[in-house]
């Protein structure tokens, strides 16, 4: 049992890391990763939703009729998303402002619904929780690393938490602003995927 828990948890961190391996959840990945901080925030919000929606979906998996399964899953997910929205407003307000419209869109992040359908709908609560947490952390890692790369190249800074840059590249550096603009998001993710391919497939 413990072994399979660990397995379900760790697979999301590397072997099936959602953004890079499965190429899921692209919208938030591209939209919010202007800074590393945003990536971390979005990742944490998604992790929270993934964890709790996975738990609830797996608890209810036997009573939800399959024809309204998508509708039910999505209500569960949306509920947690709204809770996250409140919590972020109450405790991490500045981040909430930056992530703006993308918080409600966690609802339609295919990673979340995908895990509900593919995993939580068929597995026990414990396994689903491990899976959700692993996938969420993997997603957070991916978002924050993409955010870090884009921010470093595009703005010359690295912001991890609290809005003030943790690190700034020396004054001689002229930021390559392309990377923090929309096209840079696509190119940045493309290059990250390439890097993952180079490091090695599962």
């Amino acid at each position: 049992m413990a072994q399979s828990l660990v397995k379900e948890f760790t697979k999301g961190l590397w072997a099936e890391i959602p953004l890079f391996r499965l190429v899921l959840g692209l919208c938030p990945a591209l939209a919010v990763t202007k800074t590393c901080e945003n990536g971390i925030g979005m990742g944490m919000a998604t992790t929270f939703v993934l964890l709790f929606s996975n738990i609830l979906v797996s608890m209810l998996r036997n009573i939800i009729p399959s024809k309204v399964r998508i509708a039910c899953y999505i209500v569960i997910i949306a509920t947690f998303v709204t809770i996250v929205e409140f919590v972020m407003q109450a405790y991490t307000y500045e981040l909430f402002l930056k992530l703006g419209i993308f918080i409600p869109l966690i609802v339609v992040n295919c990673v979340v619904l995908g895990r509900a359908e593919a995993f939580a709908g068929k597995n026990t609560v414990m396994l689903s929780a491990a899976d959700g947490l692993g996938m969420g952390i993997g997603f957070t890692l991916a978002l924050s690393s993409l955010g870090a790369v884009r921010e470093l190249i595009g703005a010359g800074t690295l912001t991890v938490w609290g809005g003030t840059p943790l690190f700034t590249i020396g004054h001689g550096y002229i930021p390559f602003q392309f990377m923090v603009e929309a096209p840079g998001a696509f190119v940045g993710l493309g290059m990250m995927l390439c890097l993952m391919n180079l490091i090695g497939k599962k």
Partner: protein
Amino acid sequence: MIPAILLMLGIGATCGIVLSLSSKIFYVYEDPRIAQVENNLAGANCGGCGYAGCSAAAEAVVAGKEPPTVCIINSKEGVEAVSRIMGVDAGAAEAPLSYNLCEGGNRAENKYHYMGVSSCKAMTAVFGGHRVCTVGCIGLGDCVKACQFDALHMGPDGYPVVDDAKCVGCGACQKACPKDIIQVKTLSEKLMEFNQEHGALAPCSQTCPAEINIPKYISEIKAGKYDEAVQTIRMRNPLLLSCGRVCPHPCEDMCRRGIEDEPVSINQLKRFVADYEMNSGSRIPITCAPDTGKKVAVIGGGPAGLSCAYFLRRIGHQVDIFDAMPKLGGIIRYGIPEYRLPKKVLDWEIQGILDLGINAFTQVKFGVDFGLSSLIASGYHAIFMGIGAWNDYALGIEGEDLDGCYKGIDWLSRFAGGQEMKLGKTAAIVGGGNSAIDCVRTLKRLGLEKVYIVYRRTRNEMPANEVEIVASEHEGIDFVFLAAPTRVIGDENGKVKGLEYLQMELGEPDASGRRRPVPIEGSETVLDVDMVISAISQAPDPSFKDTDPTPKIKDLELTRWNTIDNNPETLQSSIPYIFTGGDSATGPSLVVTAIGGGRRAARSIDLFLKGKPVEPVENSLQGKNIPESIFKKVDGITPIKRAKMPEIPVSERLDSMIEVDLVLPEDQALAEADRCLNCCRICYNPDTEFPIAK
């Protein structure tokens, strides 16, 4: 808080009611496996598989278009679950295997050199690929890359080689191939394939009415793999022993070597491997698909019926054959004499077909002993009618009913059936076809002093096989050409004593391109004979339409030649569940045409039994050739003599019905196989290197 709960209650209830109602109102049946498969896909609707959503991908899996691994983000368990769902399907119990249609590869000429791409798909986008051949293998190995099971490797000649042991039939290679050259099919699908306009086909295979893959079996002979050659032939023709003996091999007329040299003796090679199997003492096993639970009645156990029954059985249907004669074989048993096709050989061949699990009921005549209604009552889902063409045409001249006058097929079949025949001393056989020759050569063997063949045109126009004419010349038959019989002269006892004919001369060519014979006034001549056999073609016997009490049989339309009216591409008759083929569909024709027809009818019957529309083969090559594959000139040929057919000397064969033609010895067969250029659509293996003449 209350408004929030009420609102969500309202929306939830509305959505629930709408969805549950519409799921009832708009209920559409779909394969339950689609839902099961979809349940086991990742369900992210991410589109990563190239399909729009998981349900579309699930449909594709169930339809067999995609392997269970279609979902790129599915877990291992998911893939296994999907495989299990697909595995319980009876159809899938017959494992599909990948196979490569193009064996040209690097030998095909290049029209350009482009080193910039490394995938077939990309190369195809540039003017359809770098090879001159539009259908052949590109050779960059997209299929090899697609194979997850290490079952495909790029062979030394620039085309992929499949390792059957490792292939799981997942279909990834087929999907990757932009040329449709590598295909993943079950044996049933392969058996039911027909020549198509875009096929990688040699001229000989295009021409063969049974569509046998001739270059393949010859190269298998060349490699000493006789068993495989037999199996290759059996993919298209179950009567290889018979065909190897009696086929007039139209394929050899199209042989590419024949343009510069003598054609390859294709048919002798077929006979060589067929005899090899028979003489080896054991039969090469023939596999059949799992039972489909459908039952088909085949009326007529001739070549068309046997072929149809054989193919239907191999693709999993249950087949019963009904025949009016005491033994199966039809015209090849009762029309072809022993010295051309020994009955022992035919028995061995037919037994092999029946051993697949086909029941045969003999001496039951359609319309007399059983009819349409009795077949339907017995639970047959479809009927194949291959009743042949056994009604001899009459000469329509005076004295035809005299004692000593016979009709060709009637006489041959009665003789073959073992009846005691009354013989004269001299005989005249009217006609120039194979039946006429069969009659004369049989009569000669029965000891008649003089046997004439009376034909109204000249030797050049004789429709009989050339080898047959030559053999009868050797055997001392007298040919009376340009003679039109006008009267049979009888003596006072009503016995034949002569045949009067009018001399003819050749006039203008007629519609068939043969010069029309014109009678010479006052040239009546009498041939002194005491036996006259007319063998001037036959028509099917339509009597079943009157004797069968089933009213429905009246709906079966016949043509004015009494053949069963049918769609020549699907062989479906005017009654949807009755299919036809062979002489009863085409009028008297070749054995190999009947075999091809039997297989084509089997395909239509299979479609019919599966409830699919009975449609012709797409872009069918039936009766056509691919223009670009027909050459005027073939480079790189060194003439090599064609193997001569060994035969028993005339002196030894005229006093018995012993088989005349012998099988090639192995060394000669191998030498002959070596003459084959292993042609495909446009490429081939020349004998010598030659500069590209362009």
